[in-house]
């Protein structure tokens, strides 16, 4: 089902434009990377796709529905099929990892099950297998304030994995991770998308990760879509133009050996 954006524009409440005239179509099962300099509007785009923000102009159809014409319960149901991985995971620090992951299915569970889960987790194997794929199994029952930044980000990913959504949105999901873990995490996200034929859109700061893993790359700068190309066609020249204002070279995952 994917999503469909046409002439989408978004303005912040103080009038500054964040996105202008974005048109984008994605089929179910596609994996797309969104790259661009900081402040270019990547997060805003993802938030609109996640139905957190309403566009000022233009249409958006997500998973076959226009989110802003739905009733409250239908919107809730739509949202349970969309999973957003935040750059800074919004998880209360005193919570345990297992409860944080189980929270992914709150949209699909009846109320009594959610309440029961607070006292005794109704499903231990599920979150455990999610953590296994992210190499975090031993942290299953730890409190979230005992985790490092990268570990917490992976818990955020695990929560979305447990949710099993049809649209996976990831906002800089590996910003706090070293190269090995970044590869592992992105690999897991793509595997998830392929497994369920879900659409994946990830905004990334490191260009090399985007080029390595994603077949389709979208470049955004100052709220406008600069290019929408298969990764093989993205040349260095195009990238330099995109990041023209960034001091020095292109942002890549920091590596210890100089190129």
């Amino acid at each position, binding site marked *: 089902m994917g999503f469909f954006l046409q002439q989408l524009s978004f303005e912040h409440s103080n009038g500054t434009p964040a996105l202008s005239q974005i048109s984008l179509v994605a089929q179910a099962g596609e994996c797309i990377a969104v790259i661009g300099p900081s402040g270019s509007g990547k997060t805003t785009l993802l938030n609109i796709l996640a139905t957190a923000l309403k566009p000022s102009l233009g249409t958006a159809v997500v998973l076959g529905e226009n989110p802003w014409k739905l009733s409250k319960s239908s919107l809730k149901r739509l949202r349970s099929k969309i999973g957003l991985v935040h750059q800074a995971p919004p998880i209360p620090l005193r919570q*345990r990892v*297992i409860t944080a992951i189980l929270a992914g299915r709150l949209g699909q569970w009846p109320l009594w099950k959610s309440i029961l889960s607070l*006292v*005794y*987790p109704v499903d*231990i*194997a599920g979150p*455990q297998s999610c953590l*296994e794929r992210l*190499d975090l*199994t*031993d942290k*299953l*029952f730890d409190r979230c304030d005992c985790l490092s930044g990268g570990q917490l980000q992976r818990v955020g990913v695990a929560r979305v994995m447990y949710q099993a959504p049809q649209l996976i949105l990831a906002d800089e999901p590996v910003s706090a991770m070293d190269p090995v873990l970044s590869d592992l995490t992105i690999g897991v996200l793509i595997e998830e998308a392929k497994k369920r034929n879900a659409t994946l859109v990830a905004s990334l700061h490191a260009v090399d990760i985007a080029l390595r893993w994603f077949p389709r790359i979208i470049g955004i700068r100052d709220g406008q879509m600069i290019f929408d190309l298969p990764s093989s066609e993205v040349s260095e020249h195009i990238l330099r133009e995109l990041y023209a204002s960034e001091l020095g070279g292109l942002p890549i995952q920091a590596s210890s050996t100089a190129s």
Partner: protein
Amino acid sequence: MQTSIISRDPATPYRLMGLLLAIAILWPMLQLTQFEPKLLIDPNNIQVMGDFLVQFFPPNIEATFLSLVIKATVETLAMATAGIALAMVIAVPLGLIISYSLSISRIGPTSDHQFAQSIRFLARSLMLVLRGIPEIVWALLLVRVFGLGAIAGVLAIAITYGGMLAKVYSEILESGNTLPARALILSGSNRIAAFLYGLLPGSAQELASYTVYRWECAVRASVVMGFVGAGGLGQLMDQSMKMLNGGEVSTILVVFLGLVLLADYISLIIRKQLA
């Protein structure tokens, strides 16, 4: 990497223990308090309560009754004001005695250090007793001595709030800038002069503000003390409730809520003016 499947939440034994402990405490508590929710739906009780509540609307606004209510309200306000005034009479000397900032013996060695310490200790204990016994207990006792009526309430407020004000006055004086007072004492002035010239100017606003706040509490307390016969709106409400007269009770409740708001407002104005 193969890890064994964890099938149980490791926090479970602790949670179970906590639950058992909670039940072990809860059960005797329910017994002690004779907790019987069934009483709430007992038909007899419902009828009595229902009849009573039904009379709440419309509230009784008959002229003779209203004049009684107004008199009682004025009496309550007067009780609170007179009570706080007398409380200050107790609190000011007590607070000064307790407050360390005026302690001469602390600045340099004097012969009656022990004496001063013991006086301070006595004053502190007196304050504890005055504050510790709830004002309504004082009211109940004073009604036995002075009979029904407002005087018992005034004295009860004076005693308890005197203790409370003394404690807070001493805290305010100690936490303020004590250097001017100490300097005055060092240069030989007596304690009262040191207080008036050294401490009072700086802390006056805070002292006044707290006193006005306590007056507001005293208005509420005056109503409550009426239930043991100390006059004011409380005594009127007690009488009306004993006669199950819902109309009168609802009028008094409304007037009481209005009075609390009024006292709140007055206290705000006074504190703003004194700022």
